């Protein structure tokens, strides 16, 4: 299954970042029987004119690193199991028609919007006097002067006009060209800002009214299952005199937008969205720095973003008959909310409900143990046991692009992500993420009791189990080192987790 994800605005990028981390851990959508969907591909499309914002840049780099690692592990196959199993592709990479000139990037090209002030974009200076007056009523002076390369700075009224140009872009045409009847579309945006709040309904409107556009596959667009995550206020922002973005406005903006969505996207007589996930938190994050300008908006990762990343996975796992009628048209909108099992300020795995734990726990723990093993044990293990079975893993392996990307870039981002969530409010305390001791690394989960204490787990436990698995599985000799290392670790972790740790699932 292919899922096109439009990540709109800063929140879109941050939720996407969490989705990448979960995908790296091997978290995938579950089908009705609770099994992971084998062939799952995500095509993320980041829509944000504020290209220099740090959240977007971090997500873009992370997507590239993920793709590099994933390609080396599984090639172009969309069926995979284990770490980095979900295939993540750019629009360009899945296009068959190469005559369209599209940059191979995850970021939607909004060059017509980015290059100018809003007043220039709407040709304010050449308007008639009456239009001038009307425009002045609708837009404040600072909005007219807003340079859109820093986004819409909390102004959805700007975004709704500027982002309406998307339908004429090469990217949108390419997207329409690629879309098939089996594909799904998902939107991630916040409702209390500028870019996300305005971009989401406009994109949905353009997709559902594709018959009015000059694009291919209009019927696919009209019938495509569409899901969306709408993030309600969850973060706090430092108060400044600038005042273009103010937490005090978040609730008002949210109420207005919800009303608008209700009238235009989710009403029972003309539902445009198949599934809509609402997510927010009355407990605000620690205040983020107000910095909408160049290279600004580097906000710490947050629990809401991680939970938000589950929405596209749940949507992808929803069977088709719950989304479309017999003629293939969307059913009424199903709306979802999310609640923790335990309302706590320090969120461990035990605070999640059973279905979330079932989805996340094993994969996230295995990935964290992989991180710990590669950081603390792997290099010492080269020249021992499984590393000497074919294909042999030598010291040179640690200097390959694959390993350096994983070790110095992806894992650095991973630890930053954990640390940011840990130090935010609510605090996400899944792992003692700086610890090198596997016995106590899962917060609130210890190793199993024995007659004389507790079971012990370490890098040596993994080495021993991987040695055994490698001895008994000769099929690795036909593959390459990267796959052998990851697959062996995944299988070893599958065996060790239930044996060593207390079961919380």
């Amino acid at each position, binding site marked *: 299954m292919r899922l096109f994800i439009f990540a709109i605005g800063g929140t879109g990028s941050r939720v996407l970042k969490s989705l990448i981390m979960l995908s790296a851990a091997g978290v995938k959508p579950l089908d009705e029987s609770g099994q992971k969907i084998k062939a799952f591909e995500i095509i993320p499309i980041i829509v944000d004119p504020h290209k220099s914002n740090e959240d977007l840049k971090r997500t873009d780099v992370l997507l590239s690193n993920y793709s590099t690692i994933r390609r080396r592990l599984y090639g172009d196959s969309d069926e995979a199991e284990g770490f980095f199993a979900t295939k993540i592709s750019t629009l360009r990479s899945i296009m068959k028609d190469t005559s369209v000139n599209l940059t191979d990037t995850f970021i939607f090209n909004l060059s017509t919007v980015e290059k100018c002030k809003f007043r220039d974009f709407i040709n304010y200076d050449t308007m008639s006097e009456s239009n001038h007056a009307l425009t002045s009523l609708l837009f404040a002076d600072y909005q007219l002067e807003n340079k859109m390369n820093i986004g819409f700075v909390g102004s959805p009224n700007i975004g709704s006009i500027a982002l309406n140009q998307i339908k004429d872009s090469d990217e949108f045409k390419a997207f329409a060209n690629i879309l098939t009847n089996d594909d799904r579309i998902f939107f991630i945006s916040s409702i209390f800002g500028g870019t996300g709040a305005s971009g989401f309904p406009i994109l949905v409107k353009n997709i559902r009214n594709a018959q009015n556009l000059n694009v291919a596959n209009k019927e696919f667009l009209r019938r495509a299952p569409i899901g969306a995550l709408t993030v309600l206020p969850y973060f706090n922002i430092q108060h400044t005199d600038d005042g273009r973005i103010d937490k005090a406005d978040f609730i008002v903006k949210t109420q207005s937008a919800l009303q608008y969505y209700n009238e235009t996207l989710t009403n029972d007589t003309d539902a445009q969205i198949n599934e809509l996930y609402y997510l927010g938190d009355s407990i605000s994050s620690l205040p983020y720095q107000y910095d909408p300008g160049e290279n600004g908006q580097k906000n710490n990762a947050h629990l809401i973003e991680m939970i938000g990343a589950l929405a596209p996975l749940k949507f992808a796992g929803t069977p088709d008959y719950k989304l479309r009628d017999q003629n293939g048209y969307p059913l009424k909108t199903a709306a979802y909310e999310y609640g923790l099992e335990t309302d706590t300020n320090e969120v461990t795995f035990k605070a999640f409900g059973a279905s979330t734990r079932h989805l996340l726990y094993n994969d996230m723990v295995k990935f964290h143990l992989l991180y710990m093993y590669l950081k603390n044990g792997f290099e010492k293990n080269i020249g021992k046991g499984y590393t*000497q079975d074919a294909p042999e893993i030598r010291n040179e392996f640690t200097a390959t692009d694959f390993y350096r990307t994983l070790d110095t870039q992806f894992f650095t981002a991973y630890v930053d992500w954990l640390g940011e969530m840990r130090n935010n409010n609510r605090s996400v305390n899944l792992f003692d993420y700086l610890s090198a001791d596997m016995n106590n690394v899962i917060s609130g989960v210890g190793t199993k009791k024995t007659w004389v204490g507790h079971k012990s787990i370490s890098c*040596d436990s993994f*080495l021993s189990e991987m040695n055994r698995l490698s001895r008994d599985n000769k099929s690795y000799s036909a593959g390459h080192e990267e796959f052998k290392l990851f697959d062996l670790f995944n299988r070893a972790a599958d065996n060790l987790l239930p044996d060593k740790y207390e079961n919380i699932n």
Partner: protein
Amino acid sequence: MRNLILLAFGIVFTILFLIFPTQVYENFYFSQGFSDAMYNGSMYIVVAIITAAIAWVAAVIYYYVINSVKFDRWWHWLIILVITILLAPTVSWAYTDYDMAQQNYMYDKETFYFELLNMCVAAVLFIIASFSIRWWSSNCRHTPIPQ
């Protein structure tokens, strides 16, 4: 298949050694009175059994009982080898010394040289046993050298 061939080779080699211990030992060390006493007292076969048993048991212990990722380097294997080449001649010496004493023989110097030879025999048998059985060890199959 290669592993089974190596195991078979190790077993055949050891059995041949146990069938022809006199020829092996006397080919490398012969001292008229001492060798006659060893031969007449059927001590060669007992020493051969002791040495072969210790070498094979040591290899089994290293590869399948210890079988640890903390003890899988070539120098760990070397430690077991050294223990084997010290233990086998020591047990063998205790046996021959006792048997010689029963018969009022005094071949201390010859026994010493014989046990030096037996150290080499134990080393060879331990190496052969190691390369015969290591392939199925989960953690030490690449010790002392990679497969």
